[in-house]
């Protein structure tokens, strides 16, 4: 199994779509807006000075609405799209500078990709789809088949090896897409809105399949989504993209607790905060309460509230990873944090000023 040990470092990445994008990079660097580039030069700014370090072995979610540039960004990591300027470093090499042969080998050995519309090969069976990455690396057919069968089984498609993609439902097709990518045994897994085309139940189902696999595989996964719940559920780290720029990055909890601007806050309005925020962030450090409930510091607020109400108490002690006491929380504080911060106060303040 290829352990993911190399971070991916994206530095000052620009993509300007159009015949003469390179000449406009300086204008964008000097602050010309996307709209101005569009109206004056008929070029479209896809990515604007993106800097992102994707940690090895973790799930990095890139979130944004359609047109934010997230699909463009993920295609720069395996250079399906050529950047206008900038670099993407991996294992000491700049992917942007690679020759065609180097790039092909990088794609074959270091990356695998899962697509929003599955992009399976309709003329190949499930098994043949799954071996594709190994076939083009010219691995012996037998070994390729063995490895493919293992992953087909892992994603729960036993017995469908000889079916054609058209015979499968959407959810099953994307399992094939996942098996095809995993069979490549690459360090980097690129997932471009991989679950967006699936209906909600199957989507959550696939998310847990992915999380289960990742717990054991520890690949570097770049996951693109427009769905905040999906981002919070999957992402070790989340970057939020708007108009080709990263407007905030951090863990899900950091973003929920401290949204960088109103745009992000508006996203977060319907989030199940109790499902994202952990007791660590709201506890009173050092304080010790007289209560039968003791919780690890990574407990989610929902779980903490449930634990306290079950024990009919309104306090809980918190311990760190080693089991040492670090602080305590109250039920009232826990519940208050679960409810979205009320912004009526700010509004009334503004009214008062007006």
């Amino acid at each position, binding site marked *: 199994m290829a352990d993911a040990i190399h971070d991916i470092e994206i530095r000052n990445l620009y993509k300007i779509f159009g015949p003469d994008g390179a000449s406009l990079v300086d204008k964008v660097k000097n602050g010309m807006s996307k709209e101005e580039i569009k109206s004056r030069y008929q070029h479209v700014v896809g990515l604007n000075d993106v800097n992102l370090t994707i940690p090895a072995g973790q799930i990095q979610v890139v979130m944004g609405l359609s047109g934010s540039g997230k699909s463009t960004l993920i295609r720069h990591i*395996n250079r*399906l799209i050529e950047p206008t300027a900038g670099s993407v470093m991996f294992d000491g090499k700049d992917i942007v500078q690679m020759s065609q042969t180097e790039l*092909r*080998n*990088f*794609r*074959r*050995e270091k*990356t*695998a*990709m899962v*697509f929003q*519309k599955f*992009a*399976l*090969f*309709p*003329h190949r069976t499930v098994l043949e789809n799954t071996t*594709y*990455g190994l*076939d*083009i*690396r010219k691995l012996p057919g037998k070994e390729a088949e063995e490895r493919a069968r293992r992953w087909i089984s892992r994603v729960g498609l036993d017995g469908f090896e000889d079916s*054609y993609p*058209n*015979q*499968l*439902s959407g959810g099953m097709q994307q399992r094939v897409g996942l098996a095809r990518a995993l069979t*490549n045994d690459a360090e980097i897994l*690129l997932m471009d809105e991989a679950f967006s085309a699936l209906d909600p139940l199957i989507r959550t189902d696939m998310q847990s399949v992915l999380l289960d696999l990742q717990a054991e595989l520890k690949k570097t996964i770049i996951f693109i989504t427009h769905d905040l719940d999906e981002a919070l559920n999957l992402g070790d780290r989340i970057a939020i993209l708007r108009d080709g720029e990263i407007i905030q990055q951090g863990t899900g909890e950091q973003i929920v607790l401290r949204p960088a601007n109103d745009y992000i806050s508006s996203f977060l309005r319907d989030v199940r905060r109790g499902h994202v925020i952990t007791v660590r962030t709201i506890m009173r450090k050092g304080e010790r309460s007289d209560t039968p409930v003791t919780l690890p510091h990574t407990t989610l607020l929902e779980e903490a509230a449930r634990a306290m109400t079950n024990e009919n108490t309104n306090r809980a002690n918190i311990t760190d990873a080693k089991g040492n006491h670090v602080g305590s929380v109250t039920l009232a504080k826990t519940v208050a944090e679960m409810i979205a911060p009320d912004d009526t106060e700010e509004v009334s303040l503004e009214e008062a000023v007006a």
Partner: protein
Amino acid sequence: MDLIDFPSMSRGDLRGLRMAIDSGFRDFTRAYGETLENIFHPIQVLLVFIENLLIDTPWVIVMAALAALVWLLSRSWKIVLGSVISLCLIGYFGMWDDTMSTIAMVAVCTLIAVVLGIPIGILMARSDRANALITPILDMMQTMPSFVYLIPVVMIFGLGKVPGVIAVVIYAIPPIIRLTNLGIRQVPADVLEAAEAFGSSGGQKLRDVQLPLALPTIMAGVNQTIMMSLAMVVVASMIGVKGLGQPVLQAINNQYFTLGVMNGLAIVAIAIIFDRSTQAYGKRLQKHLEAVHG
């Protein structure tokens, strides 16, 4: 100025121009005709070989081989049975040898058209410039009356099989080129992107993704090419190609109604056999597209 008559070249000039081009071409024919004939000689050898093979082999074996071929392509007993019955009727009405000549001719022409046409189609699919360049040539090949390009062909090669093959191939090759090009261009972009993302080289993409997905369309092109070569047998018979076209031509010249109808129907019969077999084959290639999740 006279607005009724279009201001044209003087008659003398026009005749001069025509004579200059004609004599230039005649000189070219005299100088290179033999070389060209030698280059194309293998076609004649191949055609004569297949023709003799079909005519000299006992008819039972030929019929069995054709039936087996139809079965392999179509996997349909109905089509095989229909083919055998039509071949029996053709034989019974004394058209066996001419039919075999025609089948040999169509086989050779289709083979040449496929061998030349598919690579040209691939080239057109991969390069927009080649596409822009070749498309008007194909338009010309398809619309130029076949008798017009028969003239230079006959001037170079004289009467016989080779000029016949060349004329038929010129007429029948455009569909295979066009449909190969179309088939490859129609491969969905997301599937190609997936192949690219897994690190396929250009050749691997072509072999593993583009050609297999284009194959049903390419088969439709092969089918069209066969039909168009069959349509040309009568025209080709005017320059000495043996086969069912000759009796038809004879019938036209002498107003032999029955002879014309019988041989015409024989052409129709083999056309239907070829068409149904290749279409059934093309359909089988698309099996994977039919089984939709329900």
